[in-house]
């Protein structure tokens, strides 16, 4: 069956935006073709910086037949009570060229109407394409668009040619000043760039013959193979991330590796700086040798082999000049120590409402100090020093030239200033994790300073009213809060952050407050719940269970959630939940927790009281150690006494003092369970049918 080729020729599109645009082209085409009843087998998309193309395979030559229903007068009007057609009914049938008996019925807005089904024969596909393809192209939404001529069109870059072939037939679509033809263009370096395509399906091959690899996956393979081969030869690693790879793969029509060396005079420059310099603007891939040096790199020429080494010489010249620049920054930065640079933070505004970076550093020190008091492993001095120095690299020339070196540059300079390793490592690591999947700081000091930094960012943003709403999150504090929680959980920091925040509230300026500390708690608690579900795979019911008890000890919240999850499938746990739910149900409208054991009458009441006393003491010890799984096991011993209690004791006794005493005791018992969470929120195979829908709703 025939295939359709559409090629949109452009001036060079931004490398990182092309893949998205190609996927959008595929999705939009698929949607519109379905609407238009054009059937096909599959859509392949191809792209390079200069073209966006798709091949629609096995596209039928005709639209599918479409059936349209034409609505007539209401049935009640078209037919009388005896079922005979009225004048209106006859008229409608006649106007549609059918007999009255052929009229059908259709329901429309609770009313029944007469109708006629009309089948519309499919149009020729080529005719439909002529109308819909320009619309599909103009419906693409690049991140940023531009105008370039008087057509008024706007697109990611100027459109320069269109090819549209249905098999070997030209579909002359029109867009702005362009009209599709059979002519496309090979690689720019060719003498003869113009190429005529005679069939849609010969697209990939014809362009390959003109030195253009239109399939991005093939280009990626070319690039990675070249890097691997060179790395193997050197016994080195190549340092390429997805962004750099995408810039190379989607910034070239025919990538050809060019290997270059770095002049020896730069080998004493720290490798972090060499790497950042090479990767700047997505140009070169550094190689790291086993001995820790990086004396070479690879770039990718758009074109064929560099026979005379002209491109290689050019690349090496550029790298040399850039490294010289980096060394200039480095030398200037080294004229003063990192500690001396801290005072320059006075002149750098962090946020107009929250003051300078100096003030932020002061707050980080206060927060970090408080965290270190509880969880510092005796490293309070190192924590304070690292907190003091952690932002100083923001005033360095190096970080201004290479923003991605923030933290890393600070660590580097700290080491050269003879700060301790603990301090230098902490400075390097305090921005970690830099993405949701990235690794956390390895050092305790780095963890604590990182916690303090993120905590300050979140508190500050919420207090000045920059809480995220929808997709708007100017401070990126969702990510900051997530990192904060991860640091606390995975760093096993046993500390109630909410108490900490409250004790340090006065460190924040009050003038421009638009939020309160309670908003900070609320915001972070929501992030905790979401992270438990999404990152740690905790079930929503368990999250609701542990979240019912608000608190700022994220590590312990996690431990509670994990313990409940471990018990989740066990039958004895289910019966405990059932017993606890009975307690819960009866105390839910009472706030009473005081009781007097001497008023206990029945044996069941006294038995439960004895068990409560025993469990309470043991539980307190276990939970302090974070052993929630054993804690739940301990609670199991309350199950039978609770069930006996409800068989023997009438809680809602007529006598008020008795009733209040019983409610008070059960209230205290509820409190005991709440040290784990609200177990009644846990949905198990035994209680799922009667599960309270409100509880499921609440945790969303």
């Amino acid at each position, binding site marked *: 069956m025939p295939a359709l080729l559409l090629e949109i020729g452009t*001036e*060079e*599109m*931004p*490398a*990182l935006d092309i893949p998205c645009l190609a996927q959008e082209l595929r999705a939009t085409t698929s949607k519109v073709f379905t609407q238009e009843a054009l059937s096909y087998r599959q859509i392949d998309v191809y792209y390079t*910086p200069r073209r966006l193309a798709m091949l629609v395979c096995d596209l039928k030559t005709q639209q599918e037949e479409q059936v349209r229903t034409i609505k007539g007068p209401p049935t009640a009007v078209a037919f009388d009570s005896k079922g005979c057609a009225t004048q209106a009914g006859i008229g409608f049938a006649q106007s549609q060229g059918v007999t009255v008996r052929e009229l059908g019925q259709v329901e429309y807005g609770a009313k029944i109407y007469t109708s006629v089904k009309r089948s519309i024969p499919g149009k020729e596909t080529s005719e439909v394409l002529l109308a819909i393809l320009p619309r599909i192209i103009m419906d693409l939404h690049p991140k*940023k668009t*531009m*105008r*370039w*001529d*008087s057509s008024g069109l706007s697109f990611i*870059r*100027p459109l*320069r040619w269109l090819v549209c072939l249905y098999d070997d037939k030209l579909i002359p679509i029109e867009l702005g*000043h362009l009209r599709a033809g059979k002519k496309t263009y090979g690689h*720019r*370096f060719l003498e003869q760039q113009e190429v005529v395509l005679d069939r849609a399906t010969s697209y990939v091959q014809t362009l390959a013959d003109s030195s253009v690899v239109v399939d991005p996956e093939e280009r990626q393979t070319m690039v990675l193979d070249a890097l691997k081969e060179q790395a193997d030869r050197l016994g080195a690693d190549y340092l390429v991330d997805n962004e750099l790879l995408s810039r190379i793969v989607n*910034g*070239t029509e025919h990538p050809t590796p*060019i290997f270059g060396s770095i002049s020896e005079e730069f080998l004493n420059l720290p490798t972090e700086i060499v790497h950042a310099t090479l990767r700047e*603007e997505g*140009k*070169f891939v550094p190689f790291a040798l086993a001995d820790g040096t990086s004396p070479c790199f690879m*770039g990718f*020429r*758009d*074109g064929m082999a*560099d026979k*005379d080494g*002209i*491109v290689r*010489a*050019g*690349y090496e*010249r*550029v790298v*040399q*000049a850039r490294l*010289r*620049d980096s060394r*200039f920054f480095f030398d200037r930065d080294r004229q003063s120590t990192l500690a001396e640079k801290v005072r320059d933070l006075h*002149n*750098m*505004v962090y946020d*107009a409402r929250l003051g300078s970076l100096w003030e932020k550093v002061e707050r980080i020190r206060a927060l970090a100090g408080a965290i270190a008091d509880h969880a510092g492993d005796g490293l309070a001095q190192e924590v304070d020093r690292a907190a003091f120095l952690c932002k100083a690299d923001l005033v360095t020339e190096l970080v201004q030239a290479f923003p991605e070196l923030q933290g890393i540059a600070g660590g580097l300079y700290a080491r050269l200033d003879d700060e301790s390793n603990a301090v230098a490592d902490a400075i390097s690591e305090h921005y970690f994790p830099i993405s949701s999947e990235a690794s956390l700081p390895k050092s305790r000091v780095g963890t604590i300073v990182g916690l303090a930094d993120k905590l300050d960012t979140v508190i500050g943003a919420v207090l000045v009213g920059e809480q995220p709403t929808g997709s708007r999150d100017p401070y990126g504090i969702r990510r900051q809060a997530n990192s904060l929680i991860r640091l606390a959980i995975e760093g096993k920091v046993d500390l109630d952050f909410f108490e900490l925040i409250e004790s340090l509230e006065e460190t924040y300026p009050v003038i421009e407050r638009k939020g309160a500390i309670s908003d900070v708690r609320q915001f972070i608690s929501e992030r905790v719940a979401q992270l438990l579900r999404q990152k740690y795979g905790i079930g929503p019911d368990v999250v609701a269970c542990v979240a019912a008890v608000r608190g700022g000890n994220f590590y312990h919240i996690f431990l509670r959630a994990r313990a409940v999850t471990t018990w989740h499938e066990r039958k004895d746990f289910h019966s405990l939940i059932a017993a606890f739910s009975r307690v819960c149900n009866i105390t839910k409208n009472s706030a009473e927790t005081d009781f007097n054991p001497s008023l206990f009458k029945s044996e069941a009441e006294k038995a439960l009281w004895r068990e409560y006393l025993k469990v309470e003491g043991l539980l307190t010890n276990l939970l302090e150690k974070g052993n929630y799984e054993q804690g739940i096991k301990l609670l199991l011993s309350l199950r039978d006494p609770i069930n006996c209690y409800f068989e023997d004791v009438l809680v809602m006794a007529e006598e008020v003092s008795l009733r209040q005493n019983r409610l008070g005791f059960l209230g205290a018992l509820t409190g005991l369970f709440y040290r784990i969470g609200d177990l009644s929120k846990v949905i198990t195979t035994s209680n799922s049918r009667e599960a309270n829908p409100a509880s499921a709703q609440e945790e969303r």
Partner: protein
Amino acid sequence: MNFQDIVLRLHNFWRGHGCLILHPYDVETGAGTFNPATFFGTLGPNALRVGYLEPSRRPTDGRYGKNPIRLRLHHQYQAVLKPPPANIQEMYLDSLEGLGMNLAEHDVKFAEDDWESPTLAAWGVGWQVCLDEMEISQFTYFQQMAGINLDPVSVELTYGLERIAMVLQGVESTYDLRWNDGISYGTLWREKERQFSVYNFESAAVERIQKMFTLCEEECRASLVAGLVFPAYDYALKCSHLFNILDARHAISITERESFIARIRELAKACAQGYLGTGGIDACPTT
């Protein structure tokens, strides 16, 4: 090919494509875009084709004459075409070939680099053109100038002449370039680079420069009130240059920076509005 021949060839090339050949502006500019021929020329509906050389002063880029490619003053060649011809990329590449470059031997890339000038309230979409990954030109389709949507749009081609000359002459350092066949770039410029670097980074009298900035700003505003947009624009340019010196001296904090830029931007916008409002269009070069 020596440096002065490059300039002459570009003049010839663009003259051949109907460009009016103009001269550098005689007030300090940070880039060819600030030349009134471009700033005013891109405004309004009239067609425009111009080519000129522009010495561009960027105090923060000074390296005391020691860096082979970074300079406090470099030379731009600027061609502006309004509206842009459909084959403008080919035209540009032709102009490089016209300088004796065999592009088939090199790696030529048009790498995304959208241009924005906060001081001129201007932005455009385009690339840095890289030859063997060395940036040799900026290629921009202006979309806005002085906050005004351009219709028609203009294309601006800015050649970094030192970089291009280095490729052509096969030298590793700007200072080794031949200006003509007898005199080197270093002879002409190295000492100036050194002195201006010392001045911009270490010696410029911050308070005096700040006063000068304020004076120029006042003079610009006064000229605008008098309806004299071209003199006003000269003082806006001076403000921009003085700001750049203060910046190099690290005399501007981040907050102040924003407000300085905003002050210059207001001047530039007022100049453009005055120009469009006072029939200045008739005075702009057309082809």
